[in-house]
């Protein structure tokens, strides 16, 4: 099967410098894109069916088409790369930035051209030290070779690109929270509308895209939308970086056709469960996705199929739960994370999630009551989409509500036996 994003990842763990990147065909996408009109670039990306790889799966070309263009459009316009990989269980963008930083820069130049952006920011996790080092070097190389700066390759197109290291908070991964963080503020979410495409960073039209999404753009321009669709086993085009962590034989990250089944990723690539352990369930794409269980293993890992099972593909990096791990403890760990990372802006989130965490802790400690399970369900309902400013609390409810559904007897055992059976 054809690899696209990881084809040129050096086996020795080094980063592909500009020389090696160009030898492997790098920056051909930029050359081609700069000869196209911005609208043509958007059309090609639209036709490819590329959907955002940060978790939400919004169609990329459509997002770009909302940006005002032409002589009357406000400037400067901004492109922001969301490289704030903080979704627990997710470790895919790290590889792309550490191994092929120029791939990200090239994708960003093409995307910036499509929306006629003047300035681009890479919003990087503060903890990603190696990514920062390698991106800084790659940015300097790209400026030296006039892929960035004024009049790029004589095209008349200008683009400045900067690296911003985050101060660290999960909320920065939320689109509008990220914009506030870039403006030097607390990363609270903003009310939508206005959407960032109209009024984003510093009040100007802005697009925010995930690393993996941007890394696909110049490949699509180079090889065309039909090629991109053909890579996939599903109606969502392209390849996908899939990962697995937890007690599987070979935790790791693999670039596979979009729509590879959950079972193939879990059993063939991750090697199945470690000796003596039984599979109980998995979160398909990070902490904020609903559990999938045995009956779902033949689903395709794509945006459409996983949703049919009431979950989301999310980031595509699955967290696997085995039978020696307590489901209540597992969910308590997740809710601790969400309660801690809540920005405190809206009540269902800061109040509901810390309440959920406390109840889960008391169930874990053998002090739970039967009614706690109803109270937990109530919190899930109160943090549903529409009740909160952003997607953090609805995301936090996803593993909780599905754990209450699939592992209810385990919760009940804790309450009846007044202890954690796994301790």
């Amino acid at each position, binding site marked *: 099967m054809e690899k696209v994003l990881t084809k040129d990842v050096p086996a020795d763990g080094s980063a592909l410098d500009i020389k090696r990147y160009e030898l492997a065909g790098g920056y051909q996408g930029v050359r081609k894109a700069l000869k196209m009109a911005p609208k043509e670039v958007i059309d090609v990306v639209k036709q490819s069916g590329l959907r955002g790889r940060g978790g939400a799966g919004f169609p990329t070309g459509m997002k770009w088409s909302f940006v005002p263009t032409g002589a009357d459009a406000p400037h400067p316009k901004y492109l922001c790369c969301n490289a704030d990989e903080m979704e627990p269980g997710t470790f895919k963008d790290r590889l792309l930035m550490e191994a092929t930083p120029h791939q990200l820069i090239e994708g960003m130049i093409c995307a910036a051209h499509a929306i006629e952006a003047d300035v681009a920011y890479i919003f990087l996790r503060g903890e990603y030290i190696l990514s920062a080092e390698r991106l800084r070097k790659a940015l300097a190389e790209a400026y030296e070779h006039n892929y960035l700066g004024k009049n790029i390759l004589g095209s008349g197109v200008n683009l400045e690109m900067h690296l911003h290291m*985050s101060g660290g908070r999960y909320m920065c991964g939320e689109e509008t929270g990220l914009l506030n963080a870039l403006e030097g503020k607390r990363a609270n979410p903003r009310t939508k509308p206005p959407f960032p495409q109209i009024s984003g960073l510093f009040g100007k039209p802005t697009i925010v895209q995930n690393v993996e999404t941007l890394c696909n753009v110049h490949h699509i321009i180079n090889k065309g939308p039909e090629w991109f669709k053909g890579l996939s086993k599903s109606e969502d085009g392209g390849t996908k970086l899939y990962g697995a962590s937890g007690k599987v034989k070979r935790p790791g990250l693999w670039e596979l056709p979009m729509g590879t089944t959950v079972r193939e990723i879990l059993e063939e690539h991750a090697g199945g469960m470690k000796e003596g352990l039984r599979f109980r369930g998995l979160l398909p794409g990070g902490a904020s996705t609903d559990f999938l269980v045995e009956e779902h293993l033949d689903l395709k890992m794509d945006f459409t199929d996983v949703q049919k099972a009431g979950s989301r593909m999310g980031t595509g990096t699955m967290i696997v739960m085995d039978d020696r791990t307590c489901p209540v403890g597992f969910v308590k760990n997740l809710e601790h994370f969400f309660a801690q990372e809540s920005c405190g802006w809206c009540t269902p989130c800061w109040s509901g999630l810390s309440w959920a965490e406390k109840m889960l802790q008391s169930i874990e400690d053998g002090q739970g009551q039967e009614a706690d399970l109803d109270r937990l369900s109530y919190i899930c309902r109160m943090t549903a989409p529409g009740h909160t400013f952003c997607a953090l609390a609805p995301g936090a409810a996803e593993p909780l509500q599905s754990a209450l559904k699939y592992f209810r007897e385990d919760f009940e055992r804790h309450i009846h036996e007044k202890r954690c059976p796994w301790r």
Partner: protein
Amino acid sequence: MLSPEERQEIEAEFGNYPDKRALTIDAMKIVQKHRGWVSDDALKDISEILGVPVSELDSVATFYNLIYRKPVGRHVILVCDSISCWVMGYDRLRDHLTSRLGIKMGETTADGRFTLLPIVCLGTCDHAPAMMVDEDLHRDLDTEKVDSILEQYK
């Protein structure tokens, strides 16, 4: 007072943003890189350079988990306590670290050598459990490995 280097590094970032008030986080991180943490006095100095009130700087500082408003040890240990590391043995790792260092999470050893803090998912889940010491990432940890890692930081 900010040192000339700190001031220079902050001012070097001015061109990257249309408004220097956007530099709050960058400026605090620059100061922290030089001094280990961000004191009240440093906030006042940054406030003057950027034109952002001290109260707002403090509200920003306390929002972000990589900005320290209290002194820290010579080395900061960030132990990932998120889900994949928890499944792979975070509890044992934490207990080992706290008992070996004789401090609780959030504390600094009496000799000022280490500060121990929890951190959210470090994005290296296929090599869990993981931690960072200063700017170095350490992965696939067990208690023996942790002991030899700590020896590298004096």
